[in-house]
């Protein structure tokens, strides 16, 4: 696919309180033709995890023992985890909160079979992966601090949400499949640049810049006056595009 071939399989841990779901995820991982992912740990709650990440990526069920754990995600990503949320709760507000808290991707339980392994592989290299439920949440987003998406990005997200394959979306929009991926990834990268800060979001953004998905000047500075503090002369008022001569990187993102 779009991922560069890795010599070593990506390691993954599952945090899920229902053994039958864990078993299902394990079977999807086993049935991947390229054996690109290796399951190294399963846990049924967050307390079983160590201080440092046990694997490249953790698949996190958002509801553990009847409680939503979206608020625990910032702690996990600060500790260095790459989180792929896997949940039956696909309400846009929960998806948005999950992403804002620093999860790399969101996969609903209905989408698991087709998208979970791919989402894990993308997360392992800090690349965006946008499921249809994630596109839905981005389309439904009405928060004042949401990033400004271009018409093309919005149209690509809409057609993808509607259920078209990316190749069909490309035909519909008279662009290549690769450009479709670029639009969708760019929309995701813009989300990584807004809201609360998280190392995982910075990593996604840095990789998107490196991959040429988004240019530094396309990144809207953080929508907070508090963060547009003195010492960052290149970022003006919220919503203002940075001076292209002095690309402004969010905290923690250094151009490579």
């Amino acid at each position, binding site marked *: 696919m779009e991922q560069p071939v890795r010599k070593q399989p990506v390691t993954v841990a599952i945090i899920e309180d229902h053994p039958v779901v864990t078993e299902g995820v394990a079977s999807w991982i086993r049935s991947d033709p390229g054996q690109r992912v290796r399951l190294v740990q399963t846990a049924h709650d967050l307390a079983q995890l160590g201080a440092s990440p046990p694997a490249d990526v953790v698949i996190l069920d958002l509801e553990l023992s009847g409680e939503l754990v979206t608020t625990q995600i910032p702690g996990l990503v600060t500790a260095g985890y790459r989180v792929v949320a896997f949940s039956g709760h696909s309400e*846009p507000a929960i998806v948005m909160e999950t992403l804002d808290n620093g999860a790399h991707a969101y996969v609903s339980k209905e989408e698991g079979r087709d998208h979970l392994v791919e989402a894990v592989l993308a997360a392992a290299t800090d690349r965006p992966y946008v499921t249809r439920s994630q596109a*839905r949440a981005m389309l439904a987003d009405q928060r004042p601090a949401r990033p400004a998406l271009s018409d093309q990005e919005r149209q690509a997200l809409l057609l993808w949400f*509607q259920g*078209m394959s990316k*190749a069909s979306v490309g*035909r*519909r929009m008279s662009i290549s499949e690769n450009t479709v991926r670029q639009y969708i990834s760019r929309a995701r990268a813009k989300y990584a640049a807004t809201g609360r800060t998280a190392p995982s979001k910075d990593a996604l953004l840095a990789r998107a810049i490196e991959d040429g998905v988004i240019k530094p000047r396309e990144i809207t500075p953080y929508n907070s006056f508090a963060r547009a503090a003195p010492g960052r002369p290149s970022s003006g008022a919220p919503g203002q595009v940075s001076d292209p001569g002095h690309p402004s990187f969010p905290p923690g993102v250094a151009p490579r």
Partner: protein
Amino acid sequence: MTALQPAAIMSGRYQRAYTLAVIFLVAGWHLAGAGGQLLRNRPDYTSFAFQCAMWLIMALAIAAGSALVLRGTPGWFPAWSVALIALGASTAAAAATPASQMLAFNWSWGSAGWIGVLVLLRRRFTELASFLAAEALAILGVQVWDGLNRTDLAGFLALLAWSTGAQMAVAAGVRALDVAAGQAAAATRREHAARERAATADVIRADRHARWLALQESAGPLVAELAAGTADPGDPQVRIRSAVQAARLRRLLAEGDEVPGSLIHELHASADVAERRGVAVEIETAGLLPQVPGPARRVITDAAIAILTAARSQARITLATVAAGIAVSFVADTGAAVPLPAAGAGVTIEQQQDGGTLWAEARWNNR
């Protein structure tokens, strides 16, 4: 919220009616009672012109007070300004009557008391009581100044009992009526809310019953067969049945969606038919959907029925808010292009065939 409003309006209407009654009472008293007395005793006043000036000042105070109370309960400053102006004019008028004739010729005492009732009616009761007491003291002061004898004192007490008693009684009566109006309004509101709750409970109960029946006839037997081992999960037919039941369960769960309007319910009904044929249908929404008018809904659901009838095993319907309306799309494995109904009623329809998969989108714009 909607149940609250009529109740508040009703209680407000009653209170306004009582206010108007008090205004008529006060104005009537000042015009007929005080004015009549003033004219009747015209030759006996030291200065009839001065008495008339005081009477006019108090008439203006009544007008100002009426304007105040018609706009709601007045603040302490405007209420007391009006009351004190009336008290001042009344005391001056009393002081300017011939000493021995004061009680007989004084017209202003009653009017001042009524003005106090008017502006202080809906403020704390102690305020009105203090005002009436201050007024009685002022009149008594004028009496003492003029030289008080036993007959005067008896007359004063008789007048005090009569006028203050009547004023307190009216004030208390209006307060009681206000409370009654509030209670009546609250009772109406409770009744309204109870009726709404009962109606909602009926709808929910009927809805739950319908869902329970639907599950009984479809998902129940399949689960029973799977449990008994008579249905083989490896069998493609059983898989399709399971997929259909899963889709129906998902749809039942989605019915708690915040989506208003009947478009989505009509699409659900169309999907139902396809599901009975073994097509797994999923319906998803993005954003708060606008209300779509009837004719436009008909065009959209006609397209849905055409596509779902042609679908072989699966279909996805999405509803998304777009700039000026709604985009309803269908992705289904129809195998070939589907003749779709004509666009119209503000709805445009587009489709694209990719291999065996059809994508179609009906867009309705509200301008």
